């Protein structure tokens, strides 16, 4: 995959004398790839997006798109010359223009006929044929979202940036729209960077995810990598619920409060382990066993069950299949079904 966007050591201070909002940000996105910047609010992800779009100027670092330098110490290509499309959180549709006019807004260099054809084509791509004449306020939230995507896709930008694109949609609409928009982007073959604070959104939408915290990227990887093999405590906790175990490691195994468990990599001495609830299961406590706990709560959710187990004064979460027979008060043992993940100690 050829590299399309590369961000190098990007730093931005807001205000200019304040602490960096984005610091030494480095990542690259390949052609046609969907990349997500995921992090809590205030982590600098939206600022990063605005830097790439050209709305803000970095204090240090460089941005290259398609091999061409867009921003560094001496260069600043203005937003309108970058060939980068942006879909805003509030969609930012022009209320005085109808859907077709909105989509055609960026098609400056085309002839009238070409323009018309391109508008038709893009509107069909996002599945809005028949809505061309509607003004934005006459469209539903999901339809507005699609007009915004179409408007951004129409000029065929090299790169599309999505700023929390689904947060304005209600929960029901969000999942279906997400899948449809992903299909549209993949069909158009557009390289995409999205920022979001919703881990489910990032995991299901992106090819690769960069988890951000305090202006820095803590880990980059495929959704599976960052979910199953978080590098730091922050990544482990931000991507979903997890059980943290203070343990004593010795090579590929460690002694933990729940017993001896296998590790995903070699470690020595005191380490912090992460075990996702679905990587644990329950079994009946063996009489005289040292690691027995008791079931504190059981939440039946249809396709699975979440147990809360009290062991040595700590609570552990366990997701199991819906046939697990234990009830609150039962004495159980926790059993890992995957190796525990060793977290880096440096990152607090």
């Amino acid at each position, binding site marked *: 995959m050829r590299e399309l966007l590369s961000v190098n050591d990007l730093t931005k201070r807001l205000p200019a004398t304040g602490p960096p909002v984005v610091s030494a940000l480095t990542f690259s996105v390949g052609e046609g790839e969907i990349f997500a910047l995921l992090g809590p609010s205030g982590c600098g992800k939206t600022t990063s997006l605005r830097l790439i779009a050209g*709305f803000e100027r970095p204090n240090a670092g460089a941005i290259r798109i398609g091999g061409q330098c867009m921003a560094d110490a001496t260069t600043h290509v203005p937003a309108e010359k970058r060939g980068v499309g942006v879909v805003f959180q*509030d969609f930012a549709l022009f209320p005085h223009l109808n859907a077709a006019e909105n989509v055609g807004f960026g098609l*400056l260099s085309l002839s009238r006929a070409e323009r018309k054809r391109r508008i038709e084509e893009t509107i069909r791509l996002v599945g809005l044929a028949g809505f061309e004449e509607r003004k934005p306020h006459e469209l539903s939230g999901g339809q507005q979202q699609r007009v915004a995507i179409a408007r951004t896709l129409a000029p065929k930008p090299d790169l599309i940036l999505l700023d929390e694109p689904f947060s304005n949609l209600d929960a029901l609409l969000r999942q279906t729209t997400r899948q449809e928009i992903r299909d549209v982007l993949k069909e158009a073959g557009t390289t995409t960077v999205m920022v979001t604070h919703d881990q489910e959104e990032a995991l299901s939408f992106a090819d690769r995810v960069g988890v951000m915290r305090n202006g820095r990227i803590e880990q980059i990887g495929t959704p599976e990598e960052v979910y199953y093999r978080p590098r730091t405590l922050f990544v482990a906790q931000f991507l979903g619920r997890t059980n943290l175990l203070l343990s004593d490691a010795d090579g590929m195994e460690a002694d933990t409060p729940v017993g001896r468990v296998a590790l995903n990599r070699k470690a020595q001495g005191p380490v912090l382990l992460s075990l996702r609830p679905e990587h644990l299961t329950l079994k009946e406590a063996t009489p005289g066993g040292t690691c027995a706990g008791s079931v504190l709560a059981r939440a039946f959710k249809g396709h699975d069950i979440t147990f809360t187990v009290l062991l040595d004064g700590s609570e552990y979460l366990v997701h199991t299949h819906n046939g697990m027979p234990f009830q609150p008060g039962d004495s159980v043992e926790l059993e890992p079904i995957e190796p525990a993940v060793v977290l880096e100690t440096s990152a607090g």
Partner: protein
Amino acid sequence: MTRVLAYLRRPWSWYVLAPILLVGVGVIVPVIYLVLRAFEADANTLGDLVFRTRNLHLFVNTLLLAAGVLALGSAIAFPMAWLTTRTHTRFRRVFTLFGVLPLAIPGYIMAYVLLATTGSYGTLARLFGIEIPRIGGYAGAVLALTLATFPYLFLNLRTALLGLDPALEETARSLGSGTRRVLLRVIAPQLRPAFSAGALLVGLHVLGDFGVVSLMRFETFSYALYLQYAASYDRVYAACLALMLLALTGIALLLEARLLRGLLLHRTGSGPPRRIRRTSLGAWKGPAYLFLLGTATLSVGIPATTVAYWMFRTEPGSLADLAQALWASLSASAPAALLATALALPIAYLGVRSPSRPVRALERVAWFGYATPPLAFALALIFFSLRSIPWAYQTLGLLIVAYGLHFMAEAVGPIRSALYQAPPSMEEAARTLGRSPLRAFLEATFPLLRRGLLVGVAFVFLSAMKELPITFLLSPIGFQTLAVNVWGHTNEALFGAAAPYALTIMLISSLFVGLLLMQSGRPMRS
């Protein structure tokens, strides 16, 4: 200062910088000239000028006038606002209109009406044989200014009353408070910001008023300033008076800011507010209607009939003069309205999009230009133009610039409200779709500002057309607007001759007030 400089060095284009510089220079520099002129005198003379007993007399008069107008205005505006929003009074919309229409009648026309109605030659005596002494002096000034300015209080209070959360009242009642306690402890505190804003506007009008006090012969700072300038040409004393008047205005502004500091009164809960509950008046119904009808008669009925009456008494044939005056008013007010709006646009834009300390300072400068009593402002501009740009003195251009700088603040508000409807992301979207910053603004934001701009233009046009003192001091020789004609004829008790000019002002103004009312009634989008 360095921060301001650093700010100005940002890559802004001429179309933002030029208006900002004009505003800053146009408002601040003349005031500096005023100070310079006052301090030309040596210390002894200056002390003599400032610490005269006459000044104390003017000071007391000005304060008494402001207090009287505020008291009487509140006595009208509070019940009127309450009756038209919170009771089952019939014809609430009509009475609301009567609370707004006086805006179309400037103070000096109110004064004209009072003078032309009372006394042995007045309309009352002529039509009904009722002879009451001619209203003048303090009572006349208070009455005229109250009738002309109470709509500012009324409108503010009305908006506040409509915005109150009825749940608060209901909570107070459920906690055992009676009607009076609810009124005093729950409603009144919430009306404070609105009252304070309205009172400030009324106060600024009183401080700046020249037409009413001069016609009623009641000596305030403004009137003394005019006499000083027009009669004796003692410019140092005039400059001193202007500075004292400015100081008084500054105190009013500070007081208002102090009253409002830390005051944040709005609903804290979520969920849609419930509908307002209206009170039945019971036995008070009669007095309430009497009050509303009486106010409407005084503030709109009598002025309209009086002007119409004198209109038919006037000899025909002065139509050419009227046309000339109308043209004079239009030729100054229309360009001023456009200029003020053009200046207000970048200020409102920066205020909404990149609020920062220098921008807030700039907004304050605009507001300062508005709050400056017009006579003092005009005097400052005269000193400035005579000293630095003598070729511009007494030209139509300078008059237009003076109007524009003075009334610009009136256009900032509506443009700002419109800007809040246009999120910045729309302009950024236009940027990413290949537009330069200026074109992005013009294509994405500007179309949404049209109504705000229109309202701004209308406001300033209306104000400039009614304006008297600035016109008086700055207009070219022989340039007589409608307002100047009304004042001139009334000053000589030629009520018939003044009538056509007054009627024209009232007609044009009510047309604009109607337009503004219609605009504000409609939602901004769709």
